[in-house]
């Protein structure tokens, strides 16, 4: 049985590798149900920005680089929105221990993002996120076209540049 699984996995993966050369359709957001700050259910596949690309940032209240990233983007968020119509979903992976801190932090920091709660890491797992911060850009077709992990000061400039390219319909890597 074990051998069978191993062989199956091997064939499966090689198939993918070969297949990837010929077809490059991008993956979309999964139908994972998470919660709004008010506790209402929201599906990740329903994230949208009126037909424009949007950004998803995974973060947690205990993750310093995440807060650095979110604070750095918040400084320019108003300008970015006016200029490009960008929208940022900030997905908190805080669990029951730190979740009560999300709402006060969000309002206290006055970020202006769409904050949602992924309390048991369902969306984090579905999107293959290892550690926060992890940032995605989803294009107008709902396809994930860009990802980045970690935060170093200045990364927010890269993000907005890439976002602008995606708005223009340019290929990004």
């Amino acid at each position, binding site marked *: 049985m074990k051998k069978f699984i191993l062989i199956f996995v091997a064939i499966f993966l090689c198939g993918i590798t070969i297949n990837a050369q010929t077809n490059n359709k991008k993956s979309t957001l999964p139908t994972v149900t998470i919660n709004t700050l*008010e506790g*209402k259910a929201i599906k990740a596949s329903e994230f949208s920005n009126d037909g424009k690309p949007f950004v998803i940032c995974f973060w947690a209240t205990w993750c310093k680089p995440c807060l650095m990233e979110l604070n750095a983007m918040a400084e320019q968020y108003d300008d970015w929105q006016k200029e490009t119509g960008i929208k940022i979903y900030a997905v908190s992976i805080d669990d029951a221990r730190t979740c009560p801190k999300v709402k*006060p932090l969000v309002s206290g920091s006055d970020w202006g993002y769409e904050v949602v709660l992924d309390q048991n890491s369902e969306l984090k797992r579905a999107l293959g996120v290892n550690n926060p911060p992890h940032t995605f850009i989803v294009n107008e077709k709902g396809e994930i076209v860009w990802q980045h992990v*970690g935060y*170093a000061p200045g990364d927010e400039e890269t993000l907005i540049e890439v976002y602008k390219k995606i708005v223009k319909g340019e290929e990004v890597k």
Partner: protein
Amino acid sequence: MKKLLLAIFLITCSFNGFSQDIFGGKVTGNFQMDVQASKEDSIIGAEKVSEKLLMNAFTNILYTNGDFSAGMRFEAYLNPILGFDPQYKGAGLAYRFASYKKDYLEITAGNFYEQFGNGLIFRSYEERNLGLDNAMDGLKIIARPVKGVALKGVIGKQRYYWEKIWESDNFGLVRGIDAEVSINSLFKKFEASPLQIIAGGSFVSVFDKAEDRFIIEPSTGDNYKLTMPENIGSGAARLQMSYKAFNLNAEYARKGQDPNAVNGYIFHKGEAAYLSLGYAAKGLGINVSAKRIDNMSYKSRRGETGNMLNVNYLPALTRQHSYSLFAMYPYATQVNGEMGIQADIIYKLKKNTFLGGKYGTDLKLNYSIANSIDKKYVQLNPAGNYEGTEGYSSSFFKAGDEIYFEELNLELGKKLSSDFKLNLMYSYQTFNPIAIGHQGEKFIYANVFAADLTQKLKKRSSLRYEVQLLLTEQNYGEFAAGDWIQGTVEYNLGGKFFVAATDQWNYGKLNGEKVHYYNFAVGYTKGTTRIQLSYGKQREGIICIGGVCRMVPASNGLFATITSSF
């Protein structure tokens, strides 16, 4: 060996880029590998590693095609890195599932994670960096018959390292149902109401086959038979409300008779209550939480005492620190009984004001206290202990006379100019070593300080300087004593490379060597792939360098981490 080859194969396959296409569906996933080479260091308590090299690795492969998804996780611990339970040793498929999701119905067969409410009676989850995984293996159904109503049902057994859980009666069966109603989503006329109400309830039952236990009276040798309950039930009710800037989250749970190894086989019923009140306005956030836990260890095997087989989740109501000296005395929930309060105030001093300055200032205040509950022990059994008895009675609102943990901390974040950002933090902590199982040790009182300055350079590069200071007159365990100071310099180049040097110095140690815990790290990030290499001595705790936080065990040597998502 075969498994290792497979692991390497999976890894190489994984690096082909994002989301692959197969049979019209998508394949995504992630990967992490930690390699550790640690040498013996009796001064810091690092143990000899006979294998020379230790490795933890896993990869998740997820296949999605419309409403259908299936996935698996291959894990390899060859052998487990320091701090991980040796029972993880080995490799294999630790997690696999197939799932079908429609708007009104979700069915998952195989392994799954799930949480009811705040998790007081049921939470299946993983905390990879802690080596904690209580994934369920069985069936999960979620139905959403109408908008605003969610019904969940779960049945299965929990993961226990690599044990074949289905081939043994030693692992209990976990069954649970949960219902949640959002009043405002259910009734159209309340949809736009400023008062939002969500109510829920859940019931969980564990079936754990039991054998009778016997209590022996020492002088006469008489036997007293204890019949163990085989079905251990629990129930919880919860309410979440918000009205304009105010919000409330409350949950109350009870657990039936559950004599087990954690509570010393007493028949006292379990109880947990959680209440959180918040106020959130632009620039100001306040939250006050309170909880009471009474005999709430809930495992799917009554003889289990470790971190595995937990059916529920009882979080600590204290701040989770990311500065390492602030996290020197970590607090763990006392599942046999504790009550606590935590308060957070977050305030933003506005831009262009006298106190806020040109860019505004962020202030955070946090206070937490955890205390024992009142326990009146009622009767001893003939053997002179409490096994098989009710154990104790407890008055709900009365606190016990022992403090486990108390902390007050203040944090200030300020942008000084377009290139400089400063973060200052202070904390006063009181720590009772009994909370981590150290009986009869002195309380620890500590003042902890941190200053953290980030400087933006040209071309998206930056420098970060950090100083932390911990002042205490007490010793903590064998290797940490008295005062500590820590300095870190970190250089980020264009958001891709980083180099960091840290020295944590236990200069206040009176006897023995004043150890320098130095550490050098380099890292490289490209897209979703990150490689990090560090060399030095590591004290146990949370570490955040180069932009990512994770938990790390104590060691002396080399540590390499590769993470990737695809």
